[in-house]
């Protein structure tokens, strides 16, 4: 119920929402959980395995039970933690994992079978006839919420920042640390996951520097950069941290979450602690809550979750809850597991007393209290049982960041080993405000690495400081004592796992699923470890913890991907005249990371018809191709020739200026990495043309070899790919168009033969014209600075109109080059192709120097006669184009063996038949042989021929 007064909610702003269809209200400042509790909702969820009814247990990130489905506007969160979601007007909230509802769940009957379904039961059964027989039904039972049908389209932002000191946690210790580090002159970023700074100060009614603690907070953070509502969820290398800023309730209005990547020189871990449940029979009933959560609901949200309350504890922290409950008008008793009991006015304190059983339908009605051994018990009516089993320091991020942990028997907690790192507050096991402030101040100064004369903040010392009595469950046979609420792991499951040999803490986790639910074991982990330690006769220190991994709390995938998702996921590069292609009706496809025209389909034209038209036109008249994505690397220096000769498979040092040569570039393994035309511009200047997708790789390779192997050579490299646009004019009528372009260069066959180039000017525009052909026709590649690309493209189309010029795309080019047997790297070659496989053996024999990859061409396998070799194939049925990827096979009785595969195939417009290229075992020795082809179970035949189907003498290239 909601109290009439109190809490940090805005009672002037009433919010309406629905819970499983019922209309309820809350206030601005509520979480869904506080609003549900205020409305008296007891059952908010069903557990994962036994479908037990569950209520809200905690008040924040540690909540194990209250996972709900939330819709708000077009937002949907199928597995929202009700304790973390700020209530919004119009929210539609529903329980998950319960049918028809979480209050009345048919699958709740499963709980009756619990004795037959212990931890890991599925490993011991469901094997006959096979797992497939059972799996669909088990899958249908599992899962929590449902993935929404709609695709949410929010764009998530990512920001990067750096700071001298990152303070994680905005409680008293973190604020003191930030304040001190700032005073010492450091740039400080304070990250806190709540809407308001203060942490426990929000509900403690504490005093700092002789005034209200929250007044101190307001002045302490002066000059400190603060990220509120922000969770540091991952610690990564070299001081980097991932932070999710939840802006759903930011003062500026609603906005999508934002990912921050923070790089910090130093960090202070002031990450607080998480209250553990007590482990006792039937401790999972709705109405059993963390004592500290009850205090938070009272003070932060003005919610009294019960009127007749038992506070069960083994430490002093829960006394504050009991006193606050008393002050709010509840009837309160304390069951303290420890033998001594202080006097608290208005509260009965039962010493040496723990809950032995609980009962009630749909919620809590009574609790049996008595000593741990259960020798006596007294049934006490109660509608709320607030429990505290002690505190577990939130060492998650500290551990992720590489910090070591040690078990402290006195505090019954894993503590951070602070050596060389900065930690402060309850994460160190300190429960007293004065200590936390002093630690924070010290840590802030240490992290800043400088002194300051700023006085440390002070607070009154705590009244209650009795030590905790560790309590890890009760030895009461036949009872069910929950350790992991969401995944339904009981103390007995932990003991069963240990008895079966799953004694490593990681085995325990995996066998029982302890700590693997969406709360990631925040409440269950230490209790589970302690029971395992007891069951295996080890110290808790020897058992250790499981590894802490990111994220600290579940984070939406879209927020992590941020700007890498959507349009900026591996963005395609655009050609300088991209818009011209689109305007011409080009079908743009992804080729090696570039958006390039596949072909230019006319209205009503099929892709196949367009390819045939474009290829035929380039073959017999003239075509225009955009080759701008082809790499352009300029190589300059007095040793350029000698260096490139060491890099390339082919001889390039004897190339005359103004001449071009087709060359292969190998890996040191001998495998063909890339091919391309190498042009010599001058004695000391070359221009390389790597494949579009290999340009960066080739550049890196050249730099690596130069800097590490040949550092004394005078040579430099420059990638100018984006600076130049290149258009190929190809076909019998190409020369007249290029001549018409003007520019004054002598384009005669004598002056500019095939594989030659010239540099000239088109008006005031520098221009290169190269005679290089990938079509087999006379071709001119014209390059201009990319700013002039559009003008040149338009001009070439205009000048060529009378000659019938048509642009052609990659697919059409692929037909033209296939007819000529020109290979495409990555299509006709693969990660095992050597130059000899392509029939290019000359340089290996002729070149005496140790070029890259040479030695690998001499191994037994490289010189094997039965390697796969590039050949042409003429299908027996000229009307059928074999699918690239079709294999050539040797049929041997019933079996078959692959001889290789077709890499390229097309219907050749000029030959009026199908042709193909392939890599076939001993291919060159099989010239003229007819072999079997195999594709998806179908056989056909083809004859092996030389890999060139058109103009083998190359007469079309010249003249």
């Amino acid at each position, binding site marked *: 119920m909601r109290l009439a007064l109190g809490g940090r909610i805005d009672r002037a702003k009433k919010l309406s929402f629905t819970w499983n269809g019922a209309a309820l209200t809350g206030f601005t400042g509520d979480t869904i959980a506080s609003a549900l509790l205020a409305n008296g909702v007891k059952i908010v969820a069903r557990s994962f395995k036994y479908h037990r009814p569950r209520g809200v247990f905690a008040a924040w990130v540690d909540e194990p039970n209250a996972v709900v489905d939330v819709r708000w506007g077009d937002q949907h969160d199928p597995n929202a933690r009700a304790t973390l979601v700020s209530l919004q007007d119009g929210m539609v909230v529903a329980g998950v994992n319960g049918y028809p509802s979480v209050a009345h769940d048919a699958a709740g009957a499963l709980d009756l079978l619990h004795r037959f379904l212990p931890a890991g039961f599925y490993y011991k059964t469901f094997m006959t006839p096979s797992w497939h027989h059972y799996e669909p039904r088990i899958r249908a039972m599992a899962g929590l919420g449902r993935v929404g049908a709609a695709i949410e389209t929010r764009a998530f932002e990512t920001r990067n920042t750096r700071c001298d000191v990152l303070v994680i946690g905005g409680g008293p210790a973190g604020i003191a640390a930030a304040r001190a580090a700032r005073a010492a002159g450091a740039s400080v970023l304070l990250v806190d996951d709540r809407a308001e700074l203060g942490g426990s100060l929000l509900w403690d009614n504490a005093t700092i520097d002789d005034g209200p603690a929250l007044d101190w907070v307001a002045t302490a953070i002066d000059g400190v950069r603060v990220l509120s509502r922000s969770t540091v969820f991952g610690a990564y290398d070299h001081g*980097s941290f991932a932070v999710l800023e939840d802006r759903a309730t930011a003062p500026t209005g609603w906005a999508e979450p934002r990912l921050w990547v923070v790089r910090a020189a130093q960090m202070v871990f002031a990450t607080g602690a998480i209250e553990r449940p007590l482990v006792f029979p039937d401790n999972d009933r709705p109405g059993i809550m963390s004592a500290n959560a009850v205090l938070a609901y009272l003070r932060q949200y003005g919610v009294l979750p019960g009127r007749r309350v038992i506070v069960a504890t083994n430490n002093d922290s829960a006394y504050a809850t009991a006193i606050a409950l008393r002050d709010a008008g509840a009837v309160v008793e304390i069951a303290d597991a420890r033998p001594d009991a202080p006097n608290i006015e208005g509260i009965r304190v039962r010493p040496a007393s723990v809950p032995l059983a609980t009962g009630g339908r749909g919620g809590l009605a009574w609790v049996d209290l008595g000593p741990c051994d259960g020798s006596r018990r007294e049934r006490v009516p109660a509608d709320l049982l607030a429990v505290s089993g002690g505190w577990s320091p939130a060492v998650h991020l500290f551990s992720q960041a590489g910090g070591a942990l040690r078990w402290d028997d006195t505090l019954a907690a894993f503590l951070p080993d602070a050596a060389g790192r900065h930690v402060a507050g309850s994460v160190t096991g300190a429960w007293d405000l004065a200590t936390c402030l002093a630690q924070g101040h010290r840590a802030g100064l240490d992290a800043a690495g400088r002194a300051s004369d700023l006085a440390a903040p002070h607070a009154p010392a705590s009244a209650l400081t009795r030590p905790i009595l560790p309590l890890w469950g009760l030895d009461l046979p036949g009872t069910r004592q929950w350790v992991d609420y969401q995944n339904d792991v009981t103390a007995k499951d932990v003991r069963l796992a240990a008895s079966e040999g799953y004694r490593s803490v990681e085995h325990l986790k995996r066998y029982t699923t302890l700590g693997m639910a969406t709360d990631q074991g925040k409440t269950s982990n230490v209790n589970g470890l302690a029971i395992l330690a007891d069951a295996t006769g080890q110290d808790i220190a020897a058992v250790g913890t499981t590894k802490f991994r990111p994220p600290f709390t579940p984070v939406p995938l879209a927020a992590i991907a941020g700007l890498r998702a959507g349009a900026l996921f591996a963005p395609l590069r655009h050609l300088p005249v991209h818009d011209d292609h689109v305007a011409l009706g080009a079908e743009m496809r992804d080729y090696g990371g570039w958006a390039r025209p596949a072909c230019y389909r006319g209205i009503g034209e099929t892709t196949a018809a367009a390819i045939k038209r474009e290829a035929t036109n380039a073959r017999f008249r003239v075509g225009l191709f955009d080759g701008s994505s082809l790499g352009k690397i300029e190589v300059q220096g007095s040793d350029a020739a000698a260096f490139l000769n060491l890099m390339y498979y082919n001889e390039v040092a004897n190339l005359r200026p103004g001449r071009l040569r087709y060359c292969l570039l190998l890996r040191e393994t001998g495998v063909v990495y890339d091919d391309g035309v190498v042009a010599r511009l001058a004695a000391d200047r070359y221009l390389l043309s790597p494949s579009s997708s290999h340009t960066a790789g080739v550049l890196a390779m050249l730099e690596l070899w130069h800097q590490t192997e040949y550092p004394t050579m005078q040579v430099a490299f420059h990638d100018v790919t984006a600076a130049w646009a290149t258009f190929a004019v190809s076909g019998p009528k190409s020369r007249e168009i290029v001549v018409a372009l003007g520019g004054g260069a002598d384009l005669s066959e004598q002056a500019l033969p095939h594989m030659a180039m010239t540099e000239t000017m088109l008006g005031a525009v520098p221009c290169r014209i190269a005679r290089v052909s990938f079509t087999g026709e006379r071709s001119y590649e014209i390059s201009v600075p990319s700013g002039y690309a559009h003008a040149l493209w338009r001009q070439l189309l205009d000048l060529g109109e009378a000659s019938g010029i048509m642009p052609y795309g990659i697919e059409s080019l692929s037909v033209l080059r296939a007819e000529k047997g020109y290979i495409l790297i990555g299509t006709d070659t693969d990660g095992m192709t050597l130059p000899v496989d392509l029939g290019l053996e000359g340089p290996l024999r002729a070149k005496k120097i140790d070029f890259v990859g040479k030695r690998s061409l001499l191994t037994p396998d490289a010189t094997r006669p039965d390697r796969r070799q590039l050949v042409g194939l003429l299908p027996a049925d000229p009307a059928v184009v074999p699918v690239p990827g079709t294999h050539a096979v040797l049929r041997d009785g019933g079996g078959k063996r692959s001889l290789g595969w077709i890499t390229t195939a097309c219907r050749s417009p000029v030959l009026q038949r199908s042709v193909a290229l392939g890599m076939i075992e001993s291919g060159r020795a099989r010239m003229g042989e007819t072999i079997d082809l195999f594709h998806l179970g179908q056989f056909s035949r083809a004859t092996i021929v030389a890999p060139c189907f058109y103009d083998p003498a190359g007469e079309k290239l010249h003249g």
Partner: protein
Amino acid sequence: MLALPCPHCGTRDEAEFQFGGEPAIRPPSAVTDTVWADYVYMRSNEKGPHRELWCHAGGCGQWFVLTRDTATHAVLP
């Protein structure tokens, strides 16, 4: 997310760098298949301090040798 020291540009985010493998001494091609295979394929692959090549590809283009602890990712002097 490493922060790596480029000898020219100072410490920069790993996004600017390209990993280049272990440095190796290249033998002449007159060696045996085994010696050649050792150079091309065999790696020390240390757990702990590991000498490796990096290129400040998104910056100055410098290749440099770095010693990095492969167990902790710490950059060592």
